[in-house]
């Protein structure tokens, strides 16, 4: 490519009559790419369908349907039984939203119930089949549905130490289908946790928030927030309960 005619043009979408047009120099285009200010296509990693095509699984699964991934068996180990089979580096963008549902929580089931959804740095070879409580050093965030109608959110520092945790109890969680949401905003490097005691995302209420310091963010996620390969790991209780409708998307 020589310097002459070094332009990129964008055509208007004539069929819909929307969109815009413009002309950019190649220099401007490459500068924008290098500085990561050029708009890129949003990445959406939709794990719903929750089937095995999106997850590496271990063991026997009581339910592996289009919307539910639930571990089989009567006991409630906290082993990681499913890990997303693709990793993301900040989802190719710096801010993201993770939506999911735990089926339900309960009261005084013992042991209870090991139902987690975590963002980890483990890949399938090192993370799956391992007790989530024993791989704390792999975890960035951990969402848990636990005893006493409890929902819990924890941010870890990748060494197993909690930087922040929040806990919210509501007897409404005894019924399935309550949405949970975690957002990560960049460049503020802020995690925000929402739960809903109703069954609609309209019911989501913020219950926790933590902002990484600059040094924490750089060490854990890189200066651009996308230097780390991240996975979603799931451990679930038995029966027909489980984790549902997981969607992890750039925002």
């Amino acid at each position: 490519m020589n310097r002459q005619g070094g332009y990129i043009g964008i055509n208007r979408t004539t069929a819909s009559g929307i969109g815009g047009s413009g002309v950019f120099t190649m220099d401007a285009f490459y500068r924008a790419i290098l500085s990561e200010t050029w708009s890129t296509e949003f990445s959406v990693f939709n794990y719903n369908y929750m089937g095995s095509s999106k997850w590496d699984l271990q063991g026997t699964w009581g339910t592996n349907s289009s919307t539910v991934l639930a571990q089989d068996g009567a006991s409630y180990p906290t082993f990681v039984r499913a890990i997303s089979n693709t990793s993301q580096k900040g989802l190719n963008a710096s801010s993201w939203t993770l939506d999911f549902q735990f089926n339900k929580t309960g009261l005084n089931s013992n042991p209870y119930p090991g139902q987690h959804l975590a963002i980890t740095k483990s890949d399938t070879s090192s993370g799956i089949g391992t007790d989530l409580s024993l791989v704390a050093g792999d975890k960035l965030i951990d969402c848990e549905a636990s005893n006493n109608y409890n929902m819990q959110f924890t941010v870890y520092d990748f060494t197993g130490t909690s930087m922040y945790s929040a806990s919210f109890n509501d007897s409404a969680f005894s019924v399935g289908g309550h949405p949970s949401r975690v957002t990560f905003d960049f460049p503020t490097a802020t995690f925000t946790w929402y739960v809903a005691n109703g069954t609609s995302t309209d019911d989501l209420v913020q219950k926790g928030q933590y902002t990484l310091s600059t040094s924490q963010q750089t060490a854990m996620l890189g200066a651009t927030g996308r230097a780390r390969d991240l996975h979603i790991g799931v451990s679930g209780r038995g029966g027909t309960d489980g984790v549902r409708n997981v969607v992890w998307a750039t925002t």
Partner: protein
Amino acid sequence: MANIIDAIKEIGTSKYWELIGEPATEAEFNANFTNHDSSNPITWTEAKAKLDELNE
């Protein structure tokens, strides 16, 4: 080994709380523990006692 978060959860009385870090002293606990459920207070003494019990 259990930590102070496990201890607070095990006490289980507060319906809504937040905790920064993993406090190891009463001063750290009081500075970093926010209990939004004022009718069910949790003190450092309770949390530490529960933690010691869990780690026995």
